[in-house]
């Protein structure tokens, strides 16, 4: 079973889909000749040529709108937004056009469109280059939103997104690009909309994603030495959300902590908490808690950025509180 980095998994998924389907095209800012600002996509331009792999002007609205127009006329485009922080720059196209195009037309079109964007903090990129976009994007029915946490999921979910006949936004966490992991040889596309229990446990359910998932697992390993047995769930797909896996876990553990790399207000963790209240209330033996950025912004200075993102100590402390309440 070959080991790839998360970064290499992106490039391999793109290359494998482009090789198997001539309608797959890929464009974005500096993605072709330069191979991407995070060096995620080197070699694609050389292998598939300038017709199918293109550098665009710095024009996020045009990139996404063009991808939509291409998707409804016979191509299967993959468009890159260099940073997920640029989602709001293109938000009209994403929210009003891409998400609604099929619906507004009464189902006349399918929209086989994938948008990739690098997101997440922890690398000193400052306030406008470090945000996570899931919570913004969950308010637009018609879109699917996927956030892989491992090289295997990156590969399998990106391939699935490209094959999907609905628009999918795949969010890649910048802090995970160097993460190594096994990607099975025979893996092609994985199912969208399926969460994964990455660590089984009896005492408490911890729901997280991407960088926060890895921190939650580390916290769980530490808490195991204190006798707290955490079950950690990787959301993987925010839209559609795999509510069954979360509820099944709650039925077993009776406790829930959600770890978000996002501000508290209208954050996705609220949806999970509401799921617990609506459908899992009688499983619960303690208040649901969310660990997130509160109402703070991501600062540049290292101690400030460290403080705003949930870390192992903060996650562990909240889990202990819930266990004793």
């Amino acid at each position, binding site marked *: 079973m070959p080991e790839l980095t998360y970064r290499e998994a992106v490039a391999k998924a793109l290359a494998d889909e482009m090789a198997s389907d001539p309608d797959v095209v890929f464009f974005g800012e500096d993605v072709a000749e330069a191979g991407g600002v995070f060096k995620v996509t080197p070699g694609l331009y050389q292998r598939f040529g300038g017709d199918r792999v293109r550098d665009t002007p710095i024009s996020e609205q045009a990139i996404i*709108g*063009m991808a939509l127009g*291409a998707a409804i006329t016979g191509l299967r485009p993959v468009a890159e937004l260099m940073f997920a922080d640029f989602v709001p720059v293109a938000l009209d196209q994403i929210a009003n056009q891409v998400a609604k195009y099929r619906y507004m037309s009464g189902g006349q079109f399918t929209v086989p469109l994938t948008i990739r964007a690098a997101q997440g903090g922890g690398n000193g990129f400052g306030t406008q280059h470090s945000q996570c976009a899931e919570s913004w994007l969950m308010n637009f029915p018609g879109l699917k939103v996927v956030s892989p946490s491992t090289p295997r999921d990156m590969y399998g979910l990106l391939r699935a997104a490209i094959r999907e006949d609905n628009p999918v936004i795949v969010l890649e966490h910048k802090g995970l690009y160097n993460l190594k992991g096994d990607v099975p040889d025979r893996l092609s596309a994985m199912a969208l909309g399926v969460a994964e229990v990455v660590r089984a446990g009896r005492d408490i359910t911890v729901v997280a994603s991407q960088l926060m998932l890895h921190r939650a697992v580390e916290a769980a390993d530490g808490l195991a030495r204190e006798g707290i047995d955490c079950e950690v769930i990787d959301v993987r797909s925010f839209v559609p959300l795999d509510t069954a896996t979360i509820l099944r876990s709650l039925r077993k553990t009776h406790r829930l902590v959600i770890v978000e790399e996002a501000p508290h207000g209208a954050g996705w963790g609220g949806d999970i908490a509401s799921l617990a209240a609506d459908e899992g209330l009688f499983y619960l033996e303690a208040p649901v808690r969310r660990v997130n950025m509160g109402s703070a912004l991501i600062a540049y200075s290292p101690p400030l950025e460290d403080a705003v993102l949930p870390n192992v100590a903060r996650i562990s402390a909240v889990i202990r509180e819930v266990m004793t309440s």
Partner: protein
Amino acid sequence: MPDVVMPNMGFDTQSGRLIEWQKQPGEAVNKGDVIAIIESDKANVELEATTSGVLIEHVVQPGDEVVVGAVLARIDEASTPKSAVSTAVLPRAAITEFVPNMPQEAPPRSRLTPPPHDMVRAGGGAALDLTARQTALQRMLQIRLAEERIQELFLQNLIRGTTHLAIGQEACAVGTAAALLPGDKVTCTYRGHHHAVALGMSLHAMIAEMMGKAAGACKGKGGSMHMTDAQIGLLGANAIVGAQLPIALGAALTAQIKRTGSIAVAFFGEGASNIGAFHEALNMAAVWSLPVLFICENNLYGEYSVWSKTTPVQDIAVRAAAYAMPGVIVDGQDAEAVYEVVKAAGDRARAGDGPSLIECKTYRYRGHSRTDTAPYRPAGELDEWLKRDPIMILKRRMMADGQLDEDEFAEMTHAAEVAVTHAVEWASAAPFPPVEELYKDVYFEG
């Protein structure tokens, strides 16, 4: 005896207050006369008669708050035609009334923006053949009469929300449609009924869509601002100003990569040339030499503001220079002039020589949307434009060429009336979608 009802004034307005009567019982009323002033939470609105006759009775008095659809007054209709749904149809004679003083010499049929643009020369006498002229004239009549009827349906609250009429701009749409080939794709704006008809959309599906019926072009999910028909290449009208330009880029990208020889067209208004998406789209189209035409219908007003208050250039076409593409100005009231320019730019795009910006100088006879009576227009401006009515221009040219006489024109007008009336009757009788439709088409389910 037709009732004058409180009109739908758009948005969430449920009622209006009668300010004053402009016509008294016993007075003669002509279609289009202002009979009352009504106050809504948005603005004061002049209520126009949708029929002619004698005002018989005021049902409500000044100061009364009246819900939308309630009867305000009654008019005794003397001798105007009746129809199943509306209180009046546009009299056949109304079309000819638009052009009492047709200029003997029309303005130049196309004009090029000054250098440094790489110029596109108009087709040089390559006018439409007889069949294409007949199609263009028939569709302009359909557009005109459909739009008149749509306004009446809106006033009767049978069409909800808002609606944006393209009366006066018909030639831009039919001239362009005449230059397109099967496989070409079009995106347009919320003022897009004329594009839909020009491209051949079924009037039945269009009117049903505006009425929110299941048999509408978009199953009733889109409405007046989202006319879409993939079968005829209409990728969709858009309610966000400028958003349709990048989408047309994508259709052009598909044509370029798949080497289909097709082109894409994005219609927009001059107001959209001030939004970022316009500039991003033109720039990207130019650097990639995409086969796309950007067709600006400059009707002089961006919503309620005259273009000169919001735009520092005299002509939108000059903005092409910033993106190193041809910028062409054309008489948007002349369907054949539009055809020639679009055909030439289309040939250029099909040959791989990239995009063009075409500015059609045109005019909307009505306000921005139904609540707008266009009080911001200078007196006499509309009259000047009525002399350049697009239907009359083509009609006169066909008559001069011996291709049409008054009887044949009257027949064509009547045929358009019948087509519109049938579509309205059919759409009125069609069922609304079942509520289960709400959750369908959000995602493709495989």
